[in-house]
């Protein structure tokens, strides 16, 4: 005997994932979902792609598609199937990803995710089942509900004034550059079903060949929520619904275009180390820096643009290279106000507690507001270094040892006022004894590779160093 009809092998033989009634679907009689499921399953089997296909189900009447398709399945949060499918597609470059969504899911709560997946041209096929209503939750109005159509949340009929116009998703998607195929099909009569099979076969072949994003809107009847007999509902699609939602192909890229693959690489630690520029050293070196006390707390302050963040960073980087405990903290919150930017640096022999410098051992103030504000915090054994090029008057309530440094003037002499922070670096290093001049010079040579810039900075650092020698 010849078998002329059988259940698609891409469906489960019995619906084992369904808690009960494992021979029938959960769809209402006359619903279009069952027909669409069958078309997809038949084509998946025909194209021999069952093992590669991963299905993403929505929240809505399609929520249980995993009962039927024998394949890897994920169920997404409401509206998020296209985002979940994006993650699956990027993670499985060899996979064929089917995102199955309804009109509340895709055209209302999840519009953004749907449009952006389309716009990125994700390798996935999206079935947008448009039946004009929220089927699963009880027939509420959807963005696709027709004008004057009565639903449980438009009991007097949808009005454009209160509810806006029915949304044509396929036409919107066709306006995007990336999608490979955008079409609207129907599953309400044999002629439309034959056409739907053709279009969906094309869509799945595009997936098989990794040729980009496919959007297929499927006009589907919902006799239950439309309160119509199934035959009547099928006719209503032709007579009324398709006037608003014409069937057809709205966009199709040439079939001979190149595949767009997004291969993923598995990399080992060596590749990571190379990218990060790490050199192999298995031992953590010993501390190579002599501090005048076990922990030194610095505050570098000035106008934004005077390089106080990078000054702190240079000190922190040099201390890091010498295996010290180090923290660098940029100014935050209220400290940013009033023209004062600053960085706090702590260098220690032991693990450091707070990275915030409330009481600095060394304060560098490159402008007047920072000296006025932070100067009084320095205790009497602390150092206050201020930029005497820009500050002509110092506050009366300073307790620390105060040193003027014409940082801006010396930097200008070296070649640019921008090097004022490097003048300070030379001065601070010699005053505190934390770095030798040669160490500073080596560091600047590593940091500034461009010869002219390097020369200016080397001049600036020795200018600061020399002034400290005269103190």
């Amino acid at each position, binding site marked *: 005997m010849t078998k002329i009809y059988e259940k698609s092998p891409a469906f489960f033989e019995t619906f084992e994932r369904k808690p009960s009634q494992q021979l029938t679907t959960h769809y209402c009689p006359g619903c279009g979902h069952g027909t669409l499921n069958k078309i997809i399953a038949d084509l998946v089997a025909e194209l021999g792609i069952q093992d590669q296909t991963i299905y993403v189900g929505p929240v809505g009447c399609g929520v249980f598609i995993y009962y039927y398709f024998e394949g890897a399945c994920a169920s997404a949060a409401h509206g998020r199937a296209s985002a979940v499918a994006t993650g699956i597609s990027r993670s499985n470059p060899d996979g064929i990803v089917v995102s199955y969504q309804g009109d509340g899911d895709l055209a209302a709560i999840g519009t953004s995710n749907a*449009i952006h997946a389309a716009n990125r041209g994700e390798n996935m096929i999206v079935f947008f089942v448009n039946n004009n209503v929220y089927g699963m939750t009880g027939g509420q109005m959807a963005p696709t509900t027709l004008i004057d159509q009565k639903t449980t949340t438009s009991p007097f009929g949808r009005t454009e004034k209160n509810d806006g116009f029915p949304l044509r998703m396929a036409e919107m998607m066709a306006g995007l550059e990336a999608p490979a195929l955008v079409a609207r099909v129907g599953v309400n009569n044999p002629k439309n079903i034959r056409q739907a099979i053709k279009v969906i076969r094309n869509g799945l072949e595009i997936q098989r060949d990794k040729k980009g994003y496919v959007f297929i809107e499927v006009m589907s009847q919902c006799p239950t929520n439309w309160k119509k007999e199934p035959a009547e509902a099928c006719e209503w699609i032709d007579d009324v619904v398709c006037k608003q939602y014409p069937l057809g192909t709205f966009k199709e890229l040439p079939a001979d275009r190149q595949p767009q693959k997004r291969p993923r690489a598995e990399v080992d630690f060596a590749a990571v180390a190379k990218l990060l520029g790490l050199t192999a050293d298995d031992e953590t070196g010993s501390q190579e820096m002599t501090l005048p006390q076990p922990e030194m707390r610095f505050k570098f302050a000035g106008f934004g643009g005077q390089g106080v963040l990078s000054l702190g960073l240079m000190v922190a980087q040099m201390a890091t290279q010498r295996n010290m405990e180090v923290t660098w903290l940029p100014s935050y919150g209220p400290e940013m106000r009033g023209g004062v930017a600053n960085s706090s640096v702590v260098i220690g022999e032991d693990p450091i507690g707070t990275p915030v410098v409330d009481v600095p051992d060394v304060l560098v103030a490159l402008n007047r507001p920072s000296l006025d504000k932070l100067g009084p915090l320095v205790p009497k054994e602390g150092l206050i270094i201020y930029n005497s090029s820009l500050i002509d008057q110092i506050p009366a309530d300073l307790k620390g040892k105060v040193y003027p440094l014409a940082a801006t003037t010396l930097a200008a002499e070296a070649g640019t006022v921008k090097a004022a922070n490097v003048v300070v670096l030379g001065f601070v290093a010699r005053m505190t004894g934390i770095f030798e001049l040669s160490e500073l010079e080596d560091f600047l040579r590593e940091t500034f590779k461009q010869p002219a810039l390097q020369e200016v900075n080397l001049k600036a650092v020795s200018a600061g160093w020399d002034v400290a020698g005269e103190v």
Partner: protein
Amino acid sequence: MKKLVKGNEAVVIGALVAGCDAYYGYPITPASEIAHAASEYFLPLGKVFVQAECEVGAINMVFGSASSGLRTLTASSGPGISLKMEGISYLAGAELPCVIVDVQRVGPGLGNIGPEQSDYFQVVKGGGHGDYRNIVLAPASVEETYRMTIQAFDLADRWRTPVFILTDATLGQMMEPIDIRQEKIEKIDKPWALDANAASNQNLITSIYLDFDDMEAHIEKLHEKYRKITETEAAAEVYGDSNPQIVLTGYGITSRLLRSTVDELNSRGVRAALIRPKTLWPFPDHIYQETVNLGVPVLSVELSRGQFIEDVRLALPHHDVSWYGRVGGNLPEIETLVARAEQCLEEASND
């Protein structure tokens, strides 16, 4: 090799060392450097990096990637984490491993971009709908942010559950050296994952159980897992005097301030200790109970108006636990913390 990096960058380097394969995120201050570094490092290595259209999109892309068995990372700050909460509930329900970083900023609402610790309830107590838990790690330094990111991926895979790393604007923006080298990574098979092959045809990633009894069984299974996590993964560091007159406690950046406070108190002859939880869920109750003798006052400090302290009080129901904190982006000064600790001691001796 030691490298001086921001806390936010340390997350990404930790993720790379842990073998993370995918990053999905949306820009937000003060977490954006995580997305910057992820794009800079993931793309050249052939890993997945997608800047999502929204926070909700990002967490659902994480759902897709985690479903596919990849080690997956996302990061945001308070307002973005609020948006991700529905997705996190689905991840927990579907038992998907992933790592989520919250670089806390000031709230409620738009707040500001300064440091706060006011996401404690939303991150530690669940945040999304339903009866679930997240493992929450609380680093206190850039180095620990790096280490805990590596650990987070192992924990996520070991327990098939989302793991949070809870930092803040200060930890995210400050720089400290991290010691980067190859680490031993737990390799756990994921036979449940959705792959493009026949072996995964029967696999289903979902959080829906229509049948009430099946659903109850699923929730019971989750909670049996949470019980085991509570038994095995709770951790804290105790610092300072071994026989303290006063115990200070706080997590994350606050614990760094408290470490300095304990040093200052000890130098003044006050025997002080610090308990710093490294895991906020599970909360290390036993370490509090072992460390704090009856009658010893506890000062709990946080950058929020009394969230963390609830767990300290649950751990120490018979102790006098006082609260101190600053909000709005401010950090307390050490001098103020020392004064509060001394005040607590004085009040305890008057009782």
